[in-house]
């Protein structure tokens, strides 16, 4: 079982199991492959949840404003191999959750011929 974490993933429980508040506007997207132990958690920050109006993008597809809504800040990937460099690049360039979900398979680092990552049909919307 392999495990990759990148960026910031807030602690949810204190040492005595009291819930901790990760702060305002911090949400996460989570999917667990049915029948397997692999799961992917993507933490993003922003009020819109990606469904509101799109933030302004520059010519490289980056969100420019430091105050832009809905940018991914952390990854917790359980099972499979993931390239943290690609994930950190997305965090640095303030990518949105829909963008990251569309491109997540590019960060896969499994051996060649391994199955490509896909969103499970029961996963929450971006």
């Amino acid at each position, binding site marked *: 079982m392999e495990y990759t974490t990148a960026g*910031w993933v807030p602690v949810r429980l204190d040492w005595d199991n009291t819930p901790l508040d990760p702060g305002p506007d911090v949400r996460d997207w989570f999917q667990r492959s049915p029948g397997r132990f692999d799961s992917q958690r993507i933490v993003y920050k922003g009020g819109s949840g990606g469904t509101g109006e799109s933030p302004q993008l520059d010519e490289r597809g980056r969100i420019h404003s430091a105050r832009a809504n809905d940018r991914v800040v952390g990854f917790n990937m359980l099972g499979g191999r993931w390239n943290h460099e690609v994930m*950190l690049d997305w965090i640095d360039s303030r990518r949105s959750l829909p963008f990251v979900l569309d491109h997540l398979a590019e960060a896969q680092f499994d051996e060649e011929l391994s199955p490509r990552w896909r969103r499970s049909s029961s996963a929450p919307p971006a």
Partner: protein
Amino acid sequence: MQAGLMDTYHRPVQSRGIVAWILCAALVAFYLLIYYTSAFEGPARRLGLGDKWTLYGLLYTAAMVLGGIYFLRRHGNSRYQRVRTITVVAVQVLLAFALPIVMKVLGRQEYYFTYFWPLKIEYFYPSVILQQPFLIVLYSFLGSLVAFPLLGYFLGKRFYCSWICGCGGLANTAGEPFRHLSDKSPAAWRFEKVSIYTVLAVAVITTVIVGLNWAVGKQHPAFSSFAFGVQHWYGLVVGGFFSGVLGVGLYPLMGTRVWCRFACPMAAVLGLVQKFGRFRITVKKDMCISCGNCSTYCEMGIDVRAYAMANLDVKRAACVGCGMCAHVCPRGVLKLENKPDRFKGGTPIRVYAVDL
């Protein structure tokens, strides 16, 4: 002790113990007998196999099938290793063993569709070319001069050395228990660079001399006898002694790819193409824990760990792309890739303190 992947390497036969030396002597003796004497002609005929080379092909193929089963039991949990091993064994069974026999039974001259010049040097000798149908000559030339350099550029030499070639196939199946014995020292690397390109140069020169002899040999008897000598000695030393006697005989002492690493002219050509091609082993930055599994498992003697620790992608002419370094890496640091590099021209500037 828990029987992990590394544990088996402490057996005497896998760590140059006395059993390994006996096995090496037995393999060398077998190869000397089958290559240079007719000791196996009798047994071959009694088994109804015609000649000793068919018997040798049968033994070789059986070793690859059994070794393939052994390999898949150990490493078959990886899809890359599964597909690769099944492919290389199937190619040996069908194209390098069954098809030549079928051709011989049908009264045609046997032809090995999996071997090309300069590994199979005689396929560029005029006397052999003139005996072949035009389509086979076309296949051989297009393969050697066009398809192989192109495939080597885009896929690396692994498309041949790890997926098709019988020499590599035996190394990766029956030779699997000995892959860790390859010498990882810089001295071995220096020796490899001299020896493999020397053999390539000798192979090219031999081909040219034999070709010239076909063109002008009749007018120059002295040159003709010299050319026959060169052809004879190349077959004896490189084709027989290096690839067979030493190539397989030294498995238990020097690892499985002695021939591929130090002497194969095809590996030399494809290695040069690979060095300037797309294939590489991508290293995930700052993730190596220096356990050394990758270097231990490298059959070509590449010190993969040194690259991983230095955050450098592995781009070596020697790498045959067996994929075992990536397979045994406990941190998933390595990946064989053909795709253009995502971070070419330097990694992006990293903001570690994420502004929240």
